[in-house]
């Protein structure tokens, strides 16, 4: 029953035992309802307990299981053996453009630091370091704060990000310039800038409107292609470029600050 198997090739890296990445091959029984994550669980339990990968929710909400599957960044829990068929060979590599910790686990520290820098939360007038251009909207202290469906629609899609980092793996500009703040962090910055309750836009400019901010992006657009949540980070970045340009134009006209 040779066709009732699939071959899983996993890129292995262990600083102590395997300091140069190389592929390990594993034969896994084919079940059409198995995800790649299920296949990895099988490998870890029955074949080699030293294989390292991250996962948690196994239902495409936690964003832990991002990896490069047959060359394309995907979530392992959302990709199935049936997508490849019995007898196929499936290669698993860690997300590209990141430092590898072990096997399929990459170092996320740099991303978390970037995420913190864009202030991914609602900044109110009291917390804003630079004087906001918008007037302070009513706070919860005044009572219920209403937001119209139109106001919500401006940023809703950008709230769907699960920080899976497939977009960073897809971005050649991030690969060429590791300082680039990158798709997900910039999309989240845009999510708050576009929220009418937020007053942090002036503060975020220091991170966004720079060479390593939105201007590192050349609209390759592959980030939006691989995003499992249809966040369209490329669109968010272009909109922030438009904002940055308007700002620059206004400052030249003496209208801005």
């Amino acid at each position, binding site marked *: 029953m040779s066709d009732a198997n699939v071959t899983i090739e996993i890129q292995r890296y262990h600083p102590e035992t395997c300091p140069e*990445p190389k592929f390990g091959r594993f034969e896994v029984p084919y079940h059409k309802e198995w995800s790649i994550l299920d296949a990895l669980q099988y490998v870890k339990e029955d074949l080699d307990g030293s294989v390292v990968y991250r996962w948690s929710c196994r239902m495409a909400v936690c964003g832990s299981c991002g990896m490069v599957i047959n060359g394309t960044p995907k979530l392992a829990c959302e990709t199935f053996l049936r997508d490849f068929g019995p007898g196929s060979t499936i290669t698993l590599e860690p997300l590209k453009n990141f430092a590898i910790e072990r096997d399929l686990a990459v170092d996320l520290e740099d991303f978390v630091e970037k995420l913190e820098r864009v202030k991914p939360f609602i900044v109110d007038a009291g917390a804003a370091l630079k004087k906001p251009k918008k007037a302070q909207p009513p706070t919860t202290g005044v009572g219920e704060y209403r937001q119209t469906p139109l106001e919500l629609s401006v940023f809703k899609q950008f709230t769907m990000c699960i920080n899976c980092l497939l977009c960073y793996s897809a971005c050649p500009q991030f690969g060429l310039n590791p300082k680039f703040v990158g798709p997900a962090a910039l999309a989240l910055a845009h999510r708050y800038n576009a929220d009418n309750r937020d007053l942090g836009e002036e503060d975020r400019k220091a991170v966004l409107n720079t060479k390593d901010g939105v201007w590192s992006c050349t609209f390759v657009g592959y980030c939006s292609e691989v995003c499992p949540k249809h966040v369209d980070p*490329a669109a968010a970045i272009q*909109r922030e470029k438009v904002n940055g340009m308007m700002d620059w134009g206004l400052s030249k006209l003496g209208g801005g600050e």
Partner: protein
Amino acid sequence: MARQTYRPTMPKNWYLKNPFYTRYMIREATSVFVGLWMLNLTVGLWRLSQGEAAWQGWIDLQGEPWMILFSLITLGMAIYHTVTWFAIAPRAMPAVIAGKKVNPDLVGKAHWAGFVVASIVVLAILL
């Protein structure tokens, strides 16, 4: 002790590793051809300022087979750039303009409408 990680390097030919990247690189490369052709046009204007003989020389140059080939390639490149750019440009639009939600499909169509109008104007001047 610091954690020991492995940092892979990006291959020099990364844009050949994925058809999506290759299409992007072609879009970027179109600007080289369009730029060269604009240079050609600028030379033409300069020759025009030098009198009829110079201008005729430039016109004759445009008829050379290699020049026609170059113009055809540039035309193809410009069309490729237009099509691929109009397909993604609507996504760069602000979500709301003047209190109205922007429909990306409509923005794409508006790009093409602008293209048609501009082409008609240019052709009307030429013919």
